[in-house]
């Protein structure tokens, strides 16, 4: 069994605990052990938090979080693009810059902590691809979602900047597409497929209308293509799509595209109860969940 230090971040556990639970339940069954990082904090937000004011403060908060995983002797698994972006940026910068690392450790010494730089930071999509494997997902799903049209959304900070993330081609990534196609579903191609959700950098709160207008472009295309659902791998992007569609409805524009975190659909396919893994939503998912649950295995 492979083990990771499970980095929770903020929006996942504090707004969408059903996403957190879907990850805990599915990964336990798929042979990935997740150990809690006691006392972890905000990552602290790549474009909306301390990084806007002071680089060393942002690096130190990230390094403090990473040091908790180092004490456990484990690599970190994040499940949010923002957390991945913050922690991986800090980790790689500090691993390659001894002077910055010393300055961070001076601040951490004050709290009897030390950042060593021994852990790797991996996003869940990497763990799903490399530790669990697309073939394993294909066996579990047994073609049940054949005929389903899925719009995938990676989230910027999972892939960019490439020189930090070095995970998948940011212009034409495949990791999430492969995981969705392993369900038997079709991953849609559209021009806004890899556009930002519009929530990052503080824009979600700084200018809600502008933020929504960026998100809306994606919804228009998914609707036109007859997309059955949107599947993401970042709780903050997820909130933008889920809550954002409700806010657009209030302005008179209804897209009604159900939004899921990847592991929520996977959990349903693995037989977990909807009330455990997919029950917090502002954009209704009842019909699509019924459809998912009524599918039959067509190939093994």
């Amino acid at each position, binding site marked *: 069994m492979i083990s990771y230090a499970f980095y*929770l971040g*903020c*929006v996942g*556990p*504090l*707004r969408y*605990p*059903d996403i*957190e*639970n879907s990850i805990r339940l599915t990964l336990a069954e798929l042979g990935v052990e997740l150990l*809690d*990082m*006691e*006392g*972890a*904090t*905000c990552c*602290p*937000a790549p*474009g*909306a*938090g*301390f*990084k*806007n*004011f*002071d*680089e*060393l*403060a942002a690096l*130190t*908060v990230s390094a*403090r979080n990473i040091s908790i995983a180092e004490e456990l002797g484990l690599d970190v698994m994040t499940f949010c693009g923002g957390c991945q972006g913050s922690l991986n940026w800090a980790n790689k910068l500090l691993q390659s810059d001894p002077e910055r690392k010393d300055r961070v450790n001076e*601040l951490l010494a*004050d*709290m009897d902590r030390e950042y060593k730089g021994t852990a790797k930071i991996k996003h869940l999509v990497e763990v799903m691809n490399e530790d669990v494997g697309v073939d394993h997902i294909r066996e579990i799903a047994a073609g049940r979602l054949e005929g389903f049209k899925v719009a995938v959304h990676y989230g*910027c*900070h999972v892939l*960019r*900047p*490439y020189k930090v993330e070095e995970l998948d081609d940011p212009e034409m990534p495949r990791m999430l597409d492969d995981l969705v196609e392993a369900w038997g579903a079709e991953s849609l191609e559209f021009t806004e497929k890899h*556009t*930002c959700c519009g*929530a*990052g*950098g*503080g*824009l979600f*709160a*700084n*200018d809600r209308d*502008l*933020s929504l*207008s*960026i998100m809306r*472009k994606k919804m228009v295309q998914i609707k036109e293509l007859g997309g059955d659902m949107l599947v993401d791998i970042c709780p903050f992007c997820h909130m933008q799509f889920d809550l954002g569609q409700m806010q657009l409805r209030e302005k008179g524009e209804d897209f009604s595209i159900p939004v899921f975190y990847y592991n929520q659909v996977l959990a349903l396919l693995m037989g977990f109860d909807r*009330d*455990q893994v997919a*029950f*917090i939503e502002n954009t209704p998912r009842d019909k699509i969940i019924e459809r998912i649950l009524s599918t039959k295995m067509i190939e093994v």
Partner: protein
Amino acid sequence: MEVIELKNADSDFPDLVKKFGGLNLSACYQCGTCSSDCPVSTEFFYRVRRIMRRTALGLKDKVLPEKDIWCCTTCFTCFDRCPQEVNPTDVIVALRRISAREGYTPQASRNTSANITKLGHAVPSLEDIEKKREGIGLPARPPTAASHPEAIDEIQKIVKKRGIAEIIRFNWDKMELEE
């Protein structure tokens, strides 16, 4: 067309931006890749290229007070595609750091850092969500700073040593932002 008077420019400004993290600013040759790739630029007259040019010319009064630098979603598309490795996102973040020190930060961006200072998290824990967590067998609060007050003390030590409270005008007695 607007005439730009360079006598009003601050020739030290580009160096200040570099000091705050926009290291490759002077490599920009104004090709416009950043603006054409930007998800925000299709929604209003927001141009990364213009921010790079004005910054390089030292026109700080046309950059620091503008809302533009706070509209970047930090998607890093321009960062990855810039042929000159200007890293425009880094330049914009550097401009935010300078702008914040001059008091121009939007309320919402100050709020996020105030939350991290008070709670160790960017958003507060809510009673409704805590009940939902318990309903699915998770602890009401996650095993993070939300249930470890000593973790918040550690974050506050970092905030104090780095002067973030002063930059965002956070009042330690009231534990909230000043107007």
